[in-house]
């Protein structure tokens, strides 16, 4: 129910069109039920021994006008329902994307980005189709069913008794089919996903399959799976295939019944109560009744299937973002000082191990801090707490003397620039990408930032210079170039805190050093935190933090650490002497 309430909230501007659709659909249904009635009249008029041509033409024109009216109603309803359902789905997608933008990474990780995309496209379009069915057919079919039944009983009297037998048979039959078919299909679809997964494995791992000459083995494995699915699918489809004979049985029964009883009544009463026109009309109504039942059962199946999609969509909408803005946020960041107080952190509440534990660290504003340590030692986790990409589990992180959770998130993030380990550029020109840092940056500022990040030279070497288009994922620039552009982008923010998370790994040592020199002269007031693999990148920092297993192993400047930290010394020696000695 919550589900329907939330989705109903997405109707908004679609409401107007939905209501118009309902009005016109009702109109269409009413006209359509009267059509056979008039048609019967027409046939009767023609059947009369001495036909009155004027009467026939009159009824004929009435019929034609009604057909045109029905066309108009149906056409307009088709248009408005398309509009209603499309804007409904647009609103859902809008809400979804907005919601996702508020997500923390914990939330995104929970769903995975590809699943979120599927929910936004396939699932939403299923919901859209269900909505359209709902406002068109789900209204039309029951209406047609009721109208047709009423008309049949009024016109046909005893002839309509056929429905008393046929309708329950059809309803029970359809329900039974749906009852058995749906779980069968659900089970097969599950297996079908597995089959496709194994195809994908083989496509992706084609090199492995070939290098081990496992082609035949994989074929056999796949063959077994495919046969298994065939058996299940066939079973499910066979149940559904009973639909057609059932429907045909009802049609045929109706036909025979009406012909026998109809002809008997017509002859016995010499055409006074029932005549040829009535017989043909009731046959038409019979088809209408059965058809409406059939489409009702189709709607039932469609709706139950789309409920799965609706659930998946609503899961996203109902998800609570793990990060929230405080009630009365602090709107200014005083300076770039950072204090960690007894910080414990884990990525999910369910995780057994802390990613960070017992962190206490004070960084004065304007300092340069180096962080080193193996992957998984907690370097990235440590700095991601500063712009509140994640929240601490225990303890607190303070920036400018204020707990980061008390800041307005936009304010905090506008003062903290972070160049991520996984560098990303977006499709668009280099200029557009750089302006992410500062939308109002002048071209001079862009160039200055690039010069400091040692990117200006290579950007100029491109034929289109700063207007060079970056492809999705930034595949047309090299790793090192991407890193330098990302640094320039961050510099443009002129932040109070600049964090480089292993962002010069693909840049040679000389350029790396030049970039660091640039920082010192261009943004002396900014607190600079540099995570690096190379000791050379952090050697000159005011403070070097050595991370190990989510804890601070040692802290100090280069000389101190060479004395006190075995890890630091080992890494230093490894890197200066070139590798472990065997």
């Amino acid at each position, binding site marked *: 129910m919550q589900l329907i309430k939330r989705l109903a909230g997405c109707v908004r501007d679609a409401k107007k069109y939905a209501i118009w659709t309902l009005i016109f659909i009702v109109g269409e249904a009413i006209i359509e039920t009267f059509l056979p009635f008039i048609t019967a009249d027409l046939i009767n008029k023609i059947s009369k021994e001495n036909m009155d041509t004027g009467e026939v033409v009159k009824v004929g024109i009435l019929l034609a006008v009604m057909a045109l009216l029905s066309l108009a109603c149906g056409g307009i*309803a088709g248009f408005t*329902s398309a509009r209603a359902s499309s804007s409904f789905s647009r609103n859902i997608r809008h809400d979804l994307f907005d919601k996702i933008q508020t997500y923390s990474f914990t939330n995104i990780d929970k769903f995975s*980005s590809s699943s979120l*995309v599927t929910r936004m496209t396939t699932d939403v379009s299923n919901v859209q189709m269900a909505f359209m069915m709902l406002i068109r057919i789900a209204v039309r079919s029951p209406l047609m069913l009721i109208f047709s039944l009423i008309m049949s009983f009024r016109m046909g009297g005893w002839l309509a008794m056929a429905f008393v037998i046929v309708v329950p048979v059809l309803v029970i039959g359809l329900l039974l089919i749906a009852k058995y078919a749906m779980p069968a299909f659900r089970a097969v679809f599950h297996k079908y996903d597995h089959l496709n997964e194994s195809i994908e494995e083989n496509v992706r791992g084609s090199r492995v399959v070939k290098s081990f000459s496992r082609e035949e083995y994989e074929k056999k494995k796949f063959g077994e799976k495919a046969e298994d699915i065939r058996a299940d699918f066939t079973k499910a489809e066979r149940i559904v295939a009973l639909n057609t004979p059932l429907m045909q049985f009802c049609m045929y029964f109706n036909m025979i019944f009406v012909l026998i009883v109809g002809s008997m009544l017509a002859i*016995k009463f010499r055409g006074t109560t029932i005549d040829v026109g009535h*017989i043909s009309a009731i046959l038409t109504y019979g088809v209408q009744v059965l058809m409406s039942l059939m489409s009702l059962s189709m709607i039932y199946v469609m709706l139950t299937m789309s409920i799965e999609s609706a659930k998946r969509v609503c899961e996203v909408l109902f998800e609570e973002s793990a990060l929230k803005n405080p009630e009365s946020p602090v709107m200014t960041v005083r300076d770039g000082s950072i204090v960690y107080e007894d910080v414990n952190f884990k990525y999910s509440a369910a995780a057994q191990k802390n990613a960070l534990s017992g962190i206490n660290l004070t960084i004065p504003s304007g300092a340069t801090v180096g962080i080193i340590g193996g992957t998984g030692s907690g370097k990235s986790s440590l700095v991601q707490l500063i712009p509140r990409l994640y929240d601490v589990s225990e303890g607190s992180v303070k920036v400018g003397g204020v707990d980061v959770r008390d800041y307005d998130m936009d304010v905090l993030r506008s003062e903290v*620039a972070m160049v991520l380990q996984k560098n990303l550029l977006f499709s668009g020109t280099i200029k557009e990408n750089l302006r992410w840092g500062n939308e109002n940056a002048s071209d001079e500022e862009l160039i200055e930032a690039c010069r400091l990040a040692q990117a200006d030279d290579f950007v100029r070497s491109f034929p289109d210079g700063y207007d060079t288009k970056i492809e999705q994922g930034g595949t047309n620039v090299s790793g*090192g170039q991407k890193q330098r552009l990302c640094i320039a982008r961050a510099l443009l923010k002129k932040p109070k805190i600049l964090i480089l998370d292993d962002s010069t790994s693909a840049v040679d040592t000389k350029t790396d050093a030049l970039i660091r020199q640039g920082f010192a002269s261009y943004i002396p007031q900014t607190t600079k935190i540099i995570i690096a693999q190379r000791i050379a990148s952090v050697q000159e920092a005011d403070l070097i933090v050595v991370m190990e297993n989510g804890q601070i192993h040692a802290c100090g400047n280069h000389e101190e650490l060479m004395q006190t930290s075995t890890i630091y010394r080992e890494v230093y020696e490894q890197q200066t002497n070139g*590798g472990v000695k065997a």
Partner: protein
Amino acid sequence: MKRKAQHTADQKPQMPNGGTVPHKKPKFNPGLLGRVIKMLIGYYPALFPISILCIIFTAVTSAIPALFLQKVVELIRVWQVSGDWASASKEILPQILFLASMYVLALLSITVESQLMASITQGFLCKMRRTMFEKMQNLPIKYFDTHKHGDIMSYYTNDIDTLRQLVSQSIPTFVRCSVIVLTVLFIMLYYSIWLTLLLLVGVALMMLVSKKVGGGSAKYFMRLQRSVASLEGYAQEMMNGQKVVKVFGREKQCKEGFDEINDALYSDSYRAHAYANMLGPIIMNLGNIMYVAVALVGGLMAVTGARNLSLFGTFPTVGVDIIVPFLSMTRQFTGNINQLSQQINSIVMSIAGAKRIFELMDQIPEPDDGYVTLVNATVGEDGSISESDVRTGVWAWKHPHTDGSITYTLLQGDVRMTEVDFAYEEGKTVLHDVSVYAEPGQKVAFVGATGAGKTTITNLINRFYDIADGKIRYDGININKIKKADLRRSLGIVLQDTNLFTGTLMENIRYGNLDATDEECIRAAVLVGADDFITRLPNGYQTELSNNGANLSQGQRQLIAIARAAVADPPVMILDEATSSIDTRTEAIVQKGMDALMKGRTVFVIAHRLSTVRNSDVIMVLDHGRIIERGSHDQLIAEKGQYYQLYTGAFELE
């Protein structure tokens, strides 16, 4: 026969029937439909024709009630005057009874047909899937390198789905509707040629309108698909870059960008659906209007007693006995014509899907005309080698010669590349004059920037690609003469991107050697240092992996891949070391595993770690497909060239 390796830039998929069908919007190709039907008959030589016959029979029986209706109406009119039901029933009831028995038969045949079609459809799809998969397994690596994986997947999902539509719906409906249309047309002509002509004119008009409206719908549906794709792309990009978006506080701009695409999608969506929704009412009511037209014209003809023209001249004038059944046939005729025209659209779509599937099936499989095979062998005291039926642990190349003699060469792992040139695409040579010699047990390291050609060299040794010029010899035998499966069996490979398969850890290790016992697999895991973490997992070696081993860390997955290569125990190994991104500790463990694996084997390693490089017998420094420096570590350091710069960190590879 010496096979000249060829590498043309022919990336275009081969077309079936040798035709050149352009890569454009769906176009009806009867040849392809014929191929599908031929395959159907091939798979189901009895069942498929039987179900088609059933369809035809049902169609005829559903077309003829009109005839009986006419007779019954006539009889009612005759007997209505006297009202004598007792006598009338003697004439009417047999008619109805005959109809009823026809219906019983029709019901039977519908049941048979629908059940058969369900089996045939699924059976056909299963066979298609299997054929596709088997063909795909036989394709060269080049196919996988030059086709997007998403595209290949969509052959198995979307395109197979259109085939399902074709077999289970389009073909039966098409047959049924055509039969009904033809039968009804015949009966109508039997009644009145004039009225039939009137109806045909109306139907032509209807088709015209439906083509217009349907065309509009198709156009917007195509645009809709593009819009959905661009929305998908945008959402994916923004989600992958979520951290960047947040760090720069760009949420608002992001949403605006999304709304723009979303609005475009909306306008395509409602247009496409509006056209599609309007088609139904339009067609139906045009049908109604035609109904009126037939009634009026028929009525007028009856009143004026105009001369009727009918097939065989059965009905010289138009009467009620003609008009009533004719009217009911009008509905049937227009309804079926309408369904036919819809099916044509859907058939065209299915054929487009079938075309892509056939493209995959018609790809030329990886050729293999090697005749040198790997056999179990025993070495006699005199050093002579003889073939053995049982596993001996000693392998030999069995080399049949043209004169009928057979020579055996012990498998040792001596690999020599001589003056090899290679291009993935014609004109773009990526390897120039590369010569590498590796004696059994030697370790050769390749060092160089991305795109320098390191991976390409390894691609050539196991013949994922064939060389353009030069020679590669394995134990003195030209690798072109060796059966590919055996060549690859004699080479182990550990790639940087680890690919594991769904199944248990044990099964994944056994992938290297299907005959390996559990003990042998565990021994391999112990050797490479994977046993330690595996035994600490709750389910140990029986841990189920899914989604490429997503439940393991990258380092752990790599260890499994190394164990997998170890259990295969080949004399030659090709290793692509992982670049950064795994932590130092895991890296050390993985490295140990690699070192254990390398021991006693000829090894080609694409090296990223200085320790690996240093310990190699020969180091090849590659630059733009050329070997620019070669020698041992000490030699190269002394040369003070590129390697020296790399080593001292003055220069970083990208």
